[in-house]
C-alpha cells in the first residue's frame, strides 16, 4: 500500500478518450487541459503526460489549419514521395511534424494510405492527391490558402 492514500481508479480507457477529445477540440494538447484532465479523472499528471507523449496521434504544438500527409510508404517512396516531401519542406519552410509560422499548414509523413495505385500520394485534410509531381504542389497549396476567406494574411506561394 502506498503511503499516500490513492483515489479510486478511474473507469478504464477514460484517459485516452479524454486525450482524443482535447486533441480534436484544440488540434493539440494544451498544458492546462492535461492538468484539468488529470484532476478530473483522478489520474496522476505524470501518467497523463506519459500517455500523451507516447502516442503520435497527439501533438503538443498548435497545429496548422490544414494538415498535409505525405505518403512515404513503399510504393510512394519508390515513385518519388521523398521528392514531394523535400519540395514541401523547402516551400513551406517546415520539417515533418512542424507547422508553418502562419499556422496554415502542418506537414506530416505517413506510411501508406492504401492508395498505392495512385502513388506518389499526398493528403490534405483528408483529400487525396495522387500521381503527384513536385511541380504540382504550389498550385495545391494555393488552393487551400485561397479557401481561407479573410482572417490571416497570406502571401501566395
Amino acid at each position: 500500500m502506498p503511503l499516500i492514500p490513492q483515489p479510486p481508479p478511474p473507469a478504464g480507457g477514460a484517459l485516452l478518450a479524454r486525450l482524443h477529445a482535447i486533441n480534436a477540440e484544440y488540434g493539440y494538447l494544451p498544458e492546462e487541459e492535461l492538468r484539468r484532465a488529470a484532476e478530473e479523472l483522478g489520474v496522476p499528471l505524470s501518467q497523463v503526460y506519459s500517455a500523451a507523449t507516447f502516442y503520435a496521434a497527439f501533438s503538443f504544438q498548435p497545429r496548422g489549419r490544414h494538415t498535409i500527409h505525405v505518403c512515404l510508404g513503399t510504393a510512394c517512396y519508390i515513385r518519388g514521395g521523398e521528392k514531394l516531401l523535400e519540395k514541401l519542406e523547402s516551400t513551406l519552410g517546415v520539417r515533418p511534424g512542424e507547422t508553418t509560422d502562419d499556422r496554415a499548414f502542418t506537414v506530416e509523413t505517413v506510411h501508406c494510405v492504401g492508395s498505392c495505385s495512385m502513388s506518389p500520394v499526398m493528403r490534405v485534410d483528408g483529400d487525396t492527391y495522387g500521381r503527384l509531381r513536385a511541380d504540382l504542389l504550389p498550385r495545391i497549396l494555393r488552393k487551400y490558402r485561397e479557401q481561407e476567406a479573410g482572417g490571416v494574411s497570406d502571401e501566395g506561394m
Partner: protein
Amino acid sequence: MINLTVNEQPVTVPEGTTILQAVRAAGVELPTLCFHEGLAPYGACRLCMVSIAAPRHALVASCAYPVEEGLAVETNSPEAVSARRLALEFLLSRCPQSEVIQEMAAQEGVTASRFGTPPPERAEELCVLCGLCVRVCREAIGAAAIGFIGRGMERRVGTPFDIQAATCIGCGACAEICPTKAIKIEDRGNKRILHTWHTTVELHKCPQCGKLFAPEPMAFLGEMFPEIEEQWALCPECRRARTAQQWVEQRFTSPA
C-alpha cells in the same frame, strides 16, 4: 506448496512465488536490474531470463513468472545464457559509461556490444529505463511525480512538462532505488535539489540542533502517524539522544 526444480535441484516454495524468488531461494544467482521485492514484477530489463524445460519448453523472464507444480527451471541453458547476454549487449550499447552495467556485463562474459555506442548527446547516459524510480514513486510512495515520457529511442523518465513536479515530496526514493545511479539529488543549503527532475524542495530544520534533515513536503507523515508526530520534529540524532536520555532516566530513577 509448489515443488519445482532449479538446475535439477528440487525446491519447494509457497504458491505465488516467482521463478526468480525460487531460484534465489535455491542459492542460484541471477542478475536483475528492474526487480525490487517491494514492487510489483515488471519484466523490463530481461536480465533474469531462464529456460523452463517442463511442463512446456519456454524462455521466460523469471521475475514475472509464477511457479507451478513440476516446473523445471534451467538458469544456464545455452538459450537462457544467450538471452541474458543479448540483453546486456543492448544495455551496454545504451549506457557504455555505466560502471554497474559494465560489471554486470563482464560477469556474464560480455565486454563489447555489437550494437554500437550512443550518439554524442547521450554518451553519458546512465538510465536503463528499468522503471524502478517511476514505480517506487507511484506504487510505494503514492506521489506519482515522475513517469515515462515519449517512446522508442526518445523514451526517458521525467516530470510532466519537464518542470517542478507539484506532487514530488523530495523523499529521494527514486535516487535510492536507481540501480545505475542515474538520478542526481543534492542537499544544498536549506534546499534539496532533485536535478534530474528539475525540482527543488525545502528541507526541514531540527528545532533542537538546527540540522536540516528531511524535506518539508514529507511533514504529512507526522500528521498521518500521530505516534511519530512529536518525533518527526526532531532529527534522527536528537531523537536518539532524547530516547537514550529517557531510557537512562527511567532506568536509574525507578526501582529496577
